[in-house]
């Protein structure tokens, strides 16, 4: 059987299939349904330095083959996370990646520093790309300078494997990927949700309580594949492919265009076991095609131009 292990810097995973931030809670939520220890890693919902309430409902809205969300990053704050959820997660062997965010660079640094002291955190994913924050945080995702500054600052604050998560609504994703690499990131993940909105034509109000939100799910998969391909060609550090994975085929596309690993998001809502089904499908594919490992398949896209 093919070797499914992959590494993102010092983050070692038994499989290349993670679950994406915000779509799998903090661990306990799906634990009765999914064997957490079989996941490559669990990326928890975004954590900030202080507790946050999040956006008014409606917070999600279904669109053709997609989901619009404006959850607004509610979270128990870094202390709340450490006391409420880390003890549970520490009872498992699955690596824990904490997705972090802030309104200012100082807030990013604070949460990164605090998590670096905690026991049971295996990597940090830096969310610069959430479209649902008002206080200027969105800028971190689309302004190359602001992005570089936040990654550099978090890098200086932690020795944990650092994975900036790129915003997809930029013209040149390669530039952001390179900036992350130059700032000392151990890997990058992409894509976060795509800014979008829906309007109720009877009320003439947005369908989301927050007005606009982020589009995710199968609808965005071909867009995400292109983004991941471009990012992977721009850098040497590992890339985590995210966006619209619903089956092993979707995940394999990301690996073939150059991703080291993938994360399943929205599809867990449709079927909680998607990540494990995808894992099994990848293993089967590698065996059928004679690849000894995930790494052997990576970046094998046949394309010259």
């Amino acid at each position: 059987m093919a070797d499914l292990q992959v590494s993102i810097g010092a983050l070692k995973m038994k499989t290349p299939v993670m679950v994406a931030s915000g779509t799998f809670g903090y661990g306990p939520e799906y634990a009765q349904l999914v064997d957490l220890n079989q996941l490559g890693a669990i990326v928890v919902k975004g954590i900030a330095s202080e507790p946050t309430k999040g956006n008014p409902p409606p917070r999600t809205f279904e669109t053709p083959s997609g989901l619009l969300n404006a959850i607004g990053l509610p979270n128990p704050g870094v202390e709340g996370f450490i006391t409420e959820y880390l003890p549970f997660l520490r009872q498992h062997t699955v690596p824990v990646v904490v997705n972090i965010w802030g309104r200012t660079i100082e807030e990013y640094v604070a949460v990164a520093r605090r998590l670096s002291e905690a026991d049971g955190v295996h990597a940090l994913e830096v969310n610069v790309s959430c479209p649902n924050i008002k206080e200027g945080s969105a800028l971190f995702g689309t302004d190359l300078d602001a992005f570089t500054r936040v990654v550099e600052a978090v890098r200086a604050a932690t020795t944990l494997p650092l994975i900036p998560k790129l915003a997809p609504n930029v013209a040149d994703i390669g530039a952001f990927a390179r900036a992350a690499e130059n700032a000392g990131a151990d890997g990058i993940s992409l894509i976060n949700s795509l800014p979008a909105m829906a309007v109720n034509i009877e009320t003439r109000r947005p369908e989301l309580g927050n007005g606009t939100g982020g589009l995710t799910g199968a609808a965005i998969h071909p867009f995400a594949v292109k983004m991941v391909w471009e990012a992977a060609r721009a850098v040497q550090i590992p890339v985590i492919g995210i966006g619209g994975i619903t089956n092993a085929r979707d995940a394999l596309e990301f690996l073939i265009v150059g991703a080291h690993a993938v994360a399943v998001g929205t599809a867990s809502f449709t079927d909680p076991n998607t990540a494990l089904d995808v894992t099994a499908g990848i293993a089967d594919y590698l065996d059928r095609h004679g690849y000894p490992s995930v790494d052997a398949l990576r970046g094998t896209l046949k394309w010259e131009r």
Partner: protein
Amino acid sequence: MHCVTAEVIHQEVVHGGYRVLQLRAPDLVPHVQPGQFVHVRVPHMEAAVLRRPFSVYKADGDVLQILYKGVGKGTRTMTFLAPGDTLSLLGPLGHGFPTLQPGNDPILIAGGYGMAALYLLARQLPVKGVAFFGGRSAPDILCVPEFEALGWDVRIATEDGSLGTAGRVTVLMDDWWAARSHDAAHVEAYACGPNGMLQAVAARAQQHDWTAWVSVDRNMGCGVGACLTCVLKTRTPEGDWVWQRSCTEGPVFDSRQIVWDAEGAS
């Protein structure tokens, strides 16, 4: 909590567009508590990423029943389900109704599918009392013989007067309360129905010092507490408020906990 493939055993129209769907789900049935729900992946709806939540109407042996109405894309697609079809079922989910405090006098208030959502509770409660059923019109009143067979005193109100008293169910409730002896037992109300009805029940609970358990209907994503879609504004002991997940901390809440503002319980 399980995620299983369930087989459709039977589907039939009750009336007024309401249907009962019978599913074989032996792994789920034994665990169902009154007021809990299941999250259904509707087959043949390939562009839909979300499941659809339905209260458990009945759960006996290895058969789980849902009572629903075709109101949108998913529920209309469900009307085509036929025996032998299979679907993925996630559940039982959520916190259901607590049992009656000894000595309390139970009442039920239901609108629409709320009658189905209260059935298991109605069967399980050790004491029966009055069940207030409200709806737009006669076809919206469901399950009356079943509740009566369990020993409930069913009182009906329809807005168009086509069945029972004309008007809102709250009128029935108010009349009942007014006629009630003042040294009778403490009232414990169980309600499921449209938001306006729940809010009216909450107002009376507040005013008359009832205990009222309301099962709220919020759009849901994951159904298991992970996505934070289904939140409801609730009071904290400290006088502040927090969002609570109706799929996990709910769908049943103590009515006094809920902040009934436009943003929180819309």
